């Protein structure tokens, strides 16, 4: 049984690879470039779903990701809300993960230039954090008022005009869940589509594992992020945060392709 060769476990090999990687991420920030973009199937299908929604649609948007994933969802969510407001719809936000509450607050700052022209409680509202994972989701969808009495800011649910005839999942025209865990993704398919048959869109970093649900139980499965976000922004002609990341995505993917190729080549030379 051989001890793995010295070269293989050298510490300086790590520093070279990590150092080169940090450089490939610094370059596109200092010298930005954005390659042309082709619209894929997933962004087109989601765009058509939103276009075909009735006038003044009611949307449930779930924030289930942590601060690290904000760049993945910011572009897509802001473009989606602009699209909904162009059909003067209403967006009801909720969080099923603890960090989700803070992600909504962050979006109030970055999306402030649109939300400031709207009125809280009529065009958009945030109902706060519902713990309990899938159990919390199931009880929220069955009856909002049985789970929470107030929104995140403390006003009673019944005082909010947006919540007048909204209590269960069937009152929403579209449910969109932005999340990174894959356990709650299946939970949304089970509780929203299987139980209530409401139109469901999920933007998830683990979207490839939700592909079997697409398109019958899950009408829109948006991944890989933020590439789909950039495509959606181009579709509604409002370039935003996702389109700005195309340069980094290009170099980041290229770096890994080279790593895999040189990893195998280096092995052949070492043995030869």
């Amino acid at each position, binding site marked *: 049984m051989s001890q793995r060769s010295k070269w293989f476990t050298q510490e300086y090999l790590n520093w070279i690879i990590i150092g080169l990687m940090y450089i490939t991420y610094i370059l596109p920030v200092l010298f930005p470039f954005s390659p042309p*973009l082709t619209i894929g199937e997933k962004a087109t299908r989601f765009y058509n779903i939103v276009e075909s929604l009735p006038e003044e649609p009611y949307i449930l948007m779930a924030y289930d990701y942590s601060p690290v994933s904000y760049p993945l969802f910011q572009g897509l969510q802001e473009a989606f809300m602009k699209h909904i407001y162009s059909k003067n719809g209403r967006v009801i936000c909720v969080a099923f993960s603890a960090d989700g509450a803070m992600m909504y607050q962050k979006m109030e700052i970055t999306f402030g230039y649109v939300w400031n022209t709207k009125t809280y409680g009529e065009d958009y509202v945030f109902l706060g954090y519902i713990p309990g994972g899938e159990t919390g989701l199931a009880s929220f969808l069955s009856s909002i008022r*049985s789970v929470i009495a107030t929104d995140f800011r403390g006003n009673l649910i019944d005082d909010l005009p947006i919540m007048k005839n909204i209590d269960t999942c069937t009152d929403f025209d579209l449910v969109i869940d932005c999340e990174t865990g894959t356990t709650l993704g299946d939970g949304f398919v089970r509780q929203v589509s299987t139980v209530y048959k409401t139109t469901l869109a999920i933007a998830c970093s683990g979207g490839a594992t939700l592909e079997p649900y697409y398109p019958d139980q899950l009408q829109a499965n948006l991944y890989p992020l933020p590439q789909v976000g950039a495509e959606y922004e181009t579709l509604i002609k409002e370039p935003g945060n996702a389109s700005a990341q195309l340069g980094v*995505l290009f170099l980041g993917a290229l770096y890994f392709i080279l790593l895999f190729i040189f990893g195998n080549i280096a092995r052949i030379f070492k043995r030869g």
Partner: protein
Amino acid sequence: MSYFLRRTAPLWLTTIISVYLFINYYFNIGGLQIEQLLLSFAVVITTASLGLGLINLSRSHILRIQRMQKGQWYYSIILLVSMIVTIVAGLFYGADSSEFTLLYDSTVSPLGSTLMSLFIVWLAPGAFRAVRIKNVESTALIITLMIILIGGSPIGSAYLLDSLTISSWLNSVLNAAAQRGLKITIGIGLVILGIRLLSGLEKTYLKGEITE
């Protein structure tokens, strides 16, 4: 009597609640009101259990300070101080206040984000060292990986347009079929686990007791 209260009663409680929720899902017995109450009770208890993590953390670090553990105790003081600062700020200003959000945005958000973004930095040295074409399976894996790396990124959608077709076929046919098979296997596993919990055969969740 005390054996019944300690062991069998909790098992019966789990079974009764689960059986009721199953019946209410499959049959029209109009139990919606009770189901909503049961669900919101579970939500309240889960919220109350979030405090347990905090107690476990502060207990283990107070122990380290008492023992003056070499090289560790001053880090534990830093931890307890930052925890108390956050709790006081949260209670005093309130969770939705701008001060508390500022505290969150300048501490938990940057640290948590950067730590999570390091996943790819850990992956890179491993990718260079260990991704080998050893047998048929690893060849299949590396080929699809390369196509998705090109097709799913601006490289493919800008210059190599054929990769878009292949990668969307890989996503929607090959990956969807394999994940479908995986979902059936996992689904069966979870349902049978649920049945064992329901019928009291599975007692793992009663085994754990805090001995730390």
